[in-house]
C-alpha cells in the first residue's frame, strides 16, 4: 500500500510540473485561518467582509471549500494574466499564504446580503436536480451535492474537496462563469474539463435559470 501511495505522490509531483493541475490526484489543502485573516485586507475590499461579497460580479468566498479557493488563487498566480485584476493581488503571495487565505474564507459563514428565497421548483431547480437528458445536460447535484454545498463525497478523498459550493453564490458571477465554461474559455484544470462537457449544452436561458436558483438557495 505504501508503494502505491508513493507512486501516487510521484505522479502528483509529475503533474505539478506538467501543465494544468490534474485535480484527480491533488492532495489535501490545509492552512492556518488565523494567519490567513492577516492577509485578506485587500481581498475583502472587493469580496466583502469575511468574503461575503455584495457586488454581484465578485464571487462570495465565505464558506467556500478551502481546496477550491486555494487552487483558484494558485491558478491566478500560474496564469499571470495581465488582463486579470487578480494577477497583481496574488503575485507576491507565498504558497503558504494562499493556503492560509483559503482556510480563512472557508471558515467564515456565508451571510447573503438579501434573505435567501430559493424556489423549490422551477427550471433551475429541475436542471440542478435532474438535468435534461434530451438536451444532454447532466444533473449538477451529482458533483455539487443535493443542496449545492459541494461534492457529496467531500472529505472522503482530497479530490472531492475541489468541487465548489454553489448555493448562495451571486447569480451574475455564476452566469459569467458557466458561460466561460460553455464557450471553452476555462480549461486550466481537470475539473474545468469536466465542466466544459457539462456546460456544452446549456443555453443562455438554462444558465440564467440555474444561476438564479442557486443564488437564491441558502447554504
Amino acid at each position, binding site marked *: 500500500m505504501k508503494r502505491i501511495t508513493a*507512486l501516487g505522490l510521484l505522479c502528483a509531483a509529475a503533474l505539478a510540473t506538467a501543465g494544468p493541475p490534474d485535480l484527480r*490526484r491533488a492532495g489535501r489543502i490545509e492552512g492556518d485561518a488565523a494567519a490567513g485573516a492577516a492577509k485578506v485586507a485587500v481581498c475583502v475590499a472587493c469580496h466583502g467582509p469575511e468574503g461575503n461579497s455584495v457586488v454581484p460580479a465578485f464571487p462570495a468566498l465565505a464558506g467556500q471549500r478551502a481546496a477550491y479557493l486555494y487552487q483558484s488563487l494558485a491558478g491566478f498566480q500560474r496564469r499571470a494574466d495581465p488582463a486579470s485584476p487578480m494577477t497583481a493581488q496574488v503575485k507576491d503571495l507565498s504558497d503558504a499564504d494562499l493556503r492560509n487565505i483559503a482556510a480563512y474564507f472557508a471558515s467564515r459563514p456565508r451571510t447573503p446580503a438579501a434573505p435567501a428565497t430559493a424556489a423549490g421548483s422551477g427550471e433551475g431547480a429541475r436542471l440542478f436536480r435532474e438535468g435534461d437528458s434530451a438536451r444532454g445536460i447532466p444533473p449538477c447535484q451529482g458533483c455539487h451535492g443535493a443542496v449545492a454545498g459541494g461534492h457529496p463525497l467531500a472529505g472522503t478523498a482530497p479530490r472531492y474537496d475541489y468541487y465548489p459550493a454553489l448555493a448562495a453564490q451571486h447569480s451574475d458571477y455564476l452566469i459569467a462563469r458557466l458561460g466561460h465554461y460553455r464557450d471553452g474559455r476555462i480549461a486550466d484544470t481537470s475539473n474545468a474539463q469536466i465542466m466544459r462537457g457539462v456546460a456544452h449544452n446549456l443555453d443562455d436561458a438554462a444558465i440564467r435559470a440555474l444561476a438564479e436558483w442557486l443564488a437564491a438557495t441558502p447554504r
Partner: protein
Amino acid sequence: MPRTCIPVRAPLTLALLLALPAAQADSGVGVDSWRGNKLDPSAGAASATTDARGMSWLRPDLRRSPGGHLYVCPAESPQMQPIGEWEYAGRVQLGYLITFGDDANGHWNRYVKWDSGLILGLLEIALRRPEDGSYADIRASRISDDDAFFQAAFGRAGSYKVEAFLRELPNVVSGDARSIWSGVGGNDLRLIGGLQPGRSSSAEVAAAAAAAPRRSLEVVRSKTGLGLDLYLTPQWSGYARLSEDRRRGARPFGGAFFYNFVFAQNAGVLETPRPVADSTINMNLGLRYAGSAWRLDFGYDGSFYRDRYTRFDFDNPFRIAPSQPGASAPPVERGQFATEPDNDYHNLRASLTRRLPLDGEFSLSAAAGRLRQDDDLIAPVNCQGLFGIDQDGSGQPGPANRFLYACADWNTPAALSRRSADLQIDTLLLDSRFTLQPLQRLHLRGGLRFNREDYRNTYLAYNPLTGDYGYIAENAAPGSILGGQTGIWNPFAARSILTRVRSIPLDQQEIAAHLGADWRLSERNSLGATYTFTRDEPSNRERRRIDDDSLKIAWSNRAWERLTLRASYTWLQRGGDAYDYRLYAPAYSSSLPGFVAPFGGLPAPVVEAMRKYDLSDRREHKVDLIASYALREDMTLSANLRGDFNNYAAQIGRQAYDTGGISLQWDWQPGPDTQAGAYFGYDRSRLVMANVNEEVFGPDPRLGGETFPDTARWWAYDKQRNRSAGANLVQRLGRVKLDAAWNLIDSRGITSFRFNSPLALAYFEDGAAALQGAFSPLRYRVDSLTLGFSLALTPRHSLRLFDYYERGRLQDWHYQGLQAGSVIDHRVYTDAGPQSYTANLIGLLLDIRL
C-alpha cells in the same frame, strides 16, 4: 505525468478490444463491423498514441473490469482542424515492404499473400460538424493486389448513419501445388502433358505431374456492403444492412474412383483443384423500441447463396479396370461433382421484454425461418457410350450382361426421379426468460426454450428410364471394378443389392429449461447455481430422445483487496431411450418391396455396440478457475486453470475426451512511455476411440460375433499438447519509440493405436510395424519476432522501420513421401502439404497527419 493505460499484449487482442467502440457504434447486426489486415489488424489503432489523461476526469486511478483486469486506455483524441463549419482530421500512412526467405510458402501467406512493393498502410479522414453532430469518415488500406479495404460512413449523431464498405482478402490454401489439369479455377478440368483420359499409366501421370509448374492455390474473398441506421425517436430505432460476399479461386478437393489401396491398379484417387466461385448476399432489417417498461425488437435476416457453377467435371487419367481377370470395362474418363446448391434463407423474429416488480424482467421471443433450395440436379453419370463391367465381352447391356449399362440411360436429368432438389427446412424457435430479485441478496432466473426443425420433402433415387433405384457411386468407378457395386437396385435384375435409395430427413425438436439463483453472501462474495434440462428429439437418429441434465455451481469472490477469484464446476449427465443401430434401414433398398435378402442374410449395417458420440450416454465434469491479482496499481497477474472430463458409455465409438489447461498472463504499464506484457499457455487433450473391423459381410451385429469378432477390435488414442507464449515491450524515448514482440505457438499431436490382431486392419496387415503403434507426431510450431523503430520527424510526420520475422516448423505425416513424387499407384496428390519455412518482412512506413 502518470498514465492510466494498459499495455498492448498482442495485435489480435488489441484489434478485438479496439473494435469495441465501432461495434458499439453500430447496432451489432450484420457482418464486418471492423476492417483491418495482417500488417495491422487494428487498422491504425495500435499505433495511435494512448490518451495520457486516462479514462475519466472524475477519478485518477486505473480502472479494472469486474474480473479484475485493467481496462484498455482510450486513444488520444484526434487534433481536429477547422474548415468552415466543419472540423477535420486525417492521416495517411505510405510505405514500402520487402519480403524474402521462403516468402512463397503457403502458410506464411495465409490470409495475406505478402508481396514486395509500395503499399498504402492506412488512409483515414474524419469530418465533424459540431453544430449539429454531423460526421463523415473514410478509411482505406491496400497492402497487396488482393488485400485492400475501403469504408466510408456519414451521418448525424442521434439521427442516422449510412455506411458502405469494400473488402478484399486473399487466402493462400496451398503454396506448393502441381496440377495435372488445365482450367484450374473453372469447372471443367482437362488433362495436360499428353495424358489420355482413362488410358494413362501411373508412370505417365507421374511424369506429367513432375513436369507441371509449381503454383499456389488461392481463394480471394471480396465483400461489399451497405448499412443504414435510423434513430427515429429516443425510443425507436431501425437498421438495414445489405452485403455481398464473393469468393473466387480454387482449393484442393477430391475425386475418388473406389479404393486404390485395395485395388492399386484398378481404382484411382485424385486430389483435384476444385473451383470456388460463389456469392452470398446477406440482408438484415430491424426495428427496435427501448422504453422504460417495454423493449421490443423485430427483425428479418435473409441469406442468399449462389454458386456460379452447378457442377464440376474433371478428366480421370487412369484406367479403371475390373478386378476379375479377363473381364473388361469401358474406360471411366470423367469424374463429376455437384457444387453446393443455391439456397435462400429467411428468418423472422420478434422479441418482447417487460420490466417486472422486484427488479425483474420477463422476455418472450419467437422466430421462424425457412431454408430452401431447388437447384437443378445433375445426372448420375457424365459418360458417353457404356459403363460397368462387360462380363461376356459382347458389349451389349442386357440380362445376360447385367453389370454393363448404357450411359444414355443415366447421363441425362431424365434419369432422375425429380429434376430439381425441391427441399426445404422450416425452423421455429420460442424462448422465454425471466429474472427476479425477491430479496436484496438473491437473484432468480429461469427460462424455457422450444426449438424445432422440420425437413420438407425427401428424395427417392429412382431412374424412370430403367426402373432402377439408387445412386450411382463415384461416377460408376466401383461398378467398373466389382460387379454389383454400381450402387443401384432393381426389383428384377438386382433384387439383393443393398444400396442407399433415399435421403434422410433430419427433423428434430428440442425443449430446454433452466432455473438458477445467485446468492450474494456478502458485498463482494457471491454463489450461484443453475440447473438445466434439455430434451432433444431427433426424428431420424439412432435415439429418438436424448436428455441432458446439468448443474453448474459458480463462486465469485472479490473480498480480498487485490484478488478477484471466479470458480465454477459443472456436472452433466446424458441419457435417453434405447439406441437403434438399424435406424437407417428405410433409406436402403432393403426397405423396398421386391428386395430379396442375399444368401447368408442381410448384412448388419453396423456393430450394435457402436454409439455415436453426440448420442451416447455421457458424464461430464468441468471445472474452471479464473484469478486475477493486482500486483500493483499498474500491474496485473492473471491465471486460468481449466479442465473438462467426458466419459462415454460406448464399447465402440468415442470413449473419453478430456481437456485441461492453464494460462498465465502478466500486464504492466508503469508510465506513459513504457508498456510491457507476457503470457504463457499450456493445454492438453486426450481422445480415446474404440472400433472393430467388419470381418465378413454377415448379419450378426454383435460385438464378438461372427461379423465383428473380438480379434478385429482396435483402439486409437489422440493426444494433443499446445503451448503458447509471448512477450512484448513498447518504450518511448522522446521522439523515438521502440517496440518488440515475440510470440510462439507450439502444437504437437500424436495418434497412437493398438489392435487385437491383423484382422482389425483394413490395409497393411503387419499394422505398419515400422510405426511402432503410433503415427509420426503432427507438429505445428511458429515463432514470430517483431522489432520496430519509430521516429517523430515533426509533429505531423513520423517514420517507422520494422522487421517481422517468422519461422514455421510444420510436420504432417499425411504428406510423408510426397517429396519423391506426387503420384503413387493410381493416386494423385495435387497439394504437397504444409512446408516448414523461414521468412522475413521489412517495412518502412511514413505516417503523415493531414
